[in-house]
């Protein structure tokens, strides 16, 4: 329980940074997983989950007509579900637990975006009705209160979303690790490869112009050469 509260609190702080602050990158799954992994004492496994989630959301241009997933909620829930499920079932296949954790992260991000759409509408209406008071000191106070209140609102929303989703995600991950067999573990590895491939496709699409593709190829050839020489 204290872990759950602390994880939700971290998600709230990261949400403020990601959607209300200057976007330090700490809200991105690869970094949020590092933080959650350090907190729960399993950095390597949390990072595996964070890397795959980051690759899934690396898309440099959003898909047409779609809502951006709540990557803060997804990253935190995914990494935390992986670490907590592995702690609860130490004999489980790590690849299966990581894959289920990633799945929980993806689902949580979509659910988080769905909830935020409703909650964000209330915030939008409140901010849209903003009027400057008639005196300067009152206006100054109201501006500060509105900015601080709005930022806290963002943090509180993600705090509550994680508090609600994380226990479900942990239960689902533990269930999958206890009930799915060797064949499922192989499938989980294939699926993780498929999710990672989204990141590869995103990179290739973002730099697929005739001018940029040569630099993309140069980067790939340089790493391949270094690997071969070593």
């Amino acid at each position: 329980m204290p872990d759950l509260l602390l994880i939700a609190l971290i998600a709230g702080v990261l949400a403020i940074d990601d959607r209300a602050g200057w976007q330090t990158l700490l809200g991105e799954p690869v970094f949020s997983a590092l933080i959650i992994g350090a907190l729960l004492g399993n950095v390597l496994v949390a990072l595996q989950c964070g890397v795959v989630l980051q690759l899934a959301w690396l898309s440099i241009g959003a898909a047409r007509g779609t809502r951006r997933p709540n990557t803060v909620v997804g990253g935190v829930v995914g990494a935390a579900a992986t670490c907590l499920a592995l702690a609860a079932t130490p004999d489980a296949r790590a690849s299966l637990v990581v894959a289920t954790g990633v799945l929980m992260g993806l689902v949580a991000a979509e659910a988080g975006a769905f909830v935020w759409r409703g909650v964000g509408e209330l915030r939008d209406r409140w901010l849209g009705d903003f009027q400057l008071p008639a005196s300067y000191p009152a206006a100054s106070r109201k501006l500060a209160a509105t900015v601080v209140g709005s930022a806290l609102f963002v943090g509180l929303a993600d705090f509550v979303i994680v508090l609600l989703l994380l226990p479900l995600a942990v239960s689902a991950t533990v269930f999958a690790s206890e009930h799915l067999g060797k064949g499922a573990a192989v499938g989980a590895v294939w699926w993780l490869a498929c999710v990672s491939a989204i990141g590869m496709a995103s990179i290739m699409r973002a730099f697929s112009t005739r001018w940029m593709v040569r630099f993309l190829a140069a980067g790939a050839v340089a790493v391949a050469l270094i690997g071969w020489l070593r």
Partner: protein
Amino acid sequence: MTLERSDRLRVLVRLLFIQASLHRKGMQNIGVMHALDAVAPKIAPDPLALLARHAGHFNTNPNAAPIVIGGVLRIEEDGLAVSPAPVSRFEQVACSALAAMGDVLTVGALKPLALTLAVASAIYSSFTGLVAIVVLYNGALLAGRAWGLAFGYARGWGVVEAFTGARVQRVVMLARVLAALAGGALLAVLARRAFAEGLHDLAVIVIATAGAWLAMKRGWNVARLAIVLFPVVVIVAMLVK
């Protein structure tokens, strides 16, 4: 110049939270008023009137906002009487000129560059690399914002022409080239890892990449597609094994 470095620092700190009160109607206008409020009594005889002048719609890339706000501070401080056009016109022109540049530079180049390097560092479990990326990225962003505010404050209306020149385009292009190089490096890292697992895994990742490419081209949400794919892949693997 009336504003001291400490005054501009207060504006800069408040501008870090310009996105906090983002909303559909006025976009960043509350954040802008909050930032201007830090120095309003110093640059205008009627600070409330100054805030009211900036209550309209304001929308630009958050990393480019300090440049616009720096320009606004200069125009307000010099007095609206000597301004060639209303300050709202300056905001409009500067915001649209800088929004595209800011988006391409940060969202299209610097952020992907940092994230691809972060993913590569995480794959090799390089915690030093991850910390270094966060420090460098934020150092660059904060330095850029501080420079932007000082530049805007020094130039005023001159900001608009400064950011429509070829030099800015070259900087943006350089950042995109670096991001492409890092992206290529990450592709090679992922491909090498798949190859190390066996030709079978490499084939899976090549086919999946081609599939994801096609899905993106059609405008599908690939992350949602991946959720649907999980039970399918697991059931197929269970049947095969």
